[in-house]
């Protein structure tokens, strides 16, 4: 029952990090990935804050 939970948590974390990464790139951040036109407005202050939450786990976000 519990074995799937760490995998789910890891997948979820990766999805969130990818989303944050894509948002930084879409507003001009220096990333190798080209911005994908997702047409979703970015909230820059919330993006800074959530990056400080997750950036420790993902150095490239710093």
């Amino acid at each position, binding site marked *: 029952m519990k074995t799937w939970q760490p995998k789910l948590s890891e997948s979820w974390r990766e999805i969130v990090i990818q989303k944050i*990464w894509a*948002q*930084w790139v*879409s*507003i*001009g*951040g*220096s*990333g190798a990935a080209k*911005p994908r*036109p*997702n*047409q*979703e*407005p*970015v*909230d*820059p*202050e*919330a993006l*800074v*804050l*959530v*990056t*400080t*939450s997750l*950036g*420790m786990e993902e*150095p*490239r*976000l*710093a």
Partner: protein
Amino acid sequence: MCFDWLSKNGKLISVQRLKNIQRPTHLGDEGWLRELAELMIERKFVSWKSIANSVSDPLTVKESRQFSVRSMSQKPLSISAESFIFKLRNFFGMTARAEVFHWLLTHESGHASAIARDTFWLPKTVQNILNEWENAGICRYFICGAETLFQANVQDIDLEDEAEKRRFVK
């Protein structure tokens, strides 16, 4: 990525709004935020002093990390939907007006307090802006039950209409 972008575009971030989001939600890591604030202050973004002073959890030397600066970040593209808020900030200045206008353009209608909650600006500030814009014809209000709802007055500006376009260009 984060600090590299902020180094280039720091003036496009509202430190006041950052605090308005951080206080009630506790979003963000305070130690990291403090370190980021100190680096921004070193780069002459002095408004970040209030962040450095308000968060109470400085990182230890062991935990402290280097934010990377590669000087490769660009200005946000003014034509993209993702960066539209920056266009509004360049137009209105770093005030609540940019977020309120953005909200009106992306929602059908709403009460001033709901707009304030969504945009993380003070209800009184948002109400004053909406009142001013209602007077100017930029937005209008209607009564729905016990609520006064505001919506953008976009239907009066039909930019698909060639005559209207010419009128605006003049």
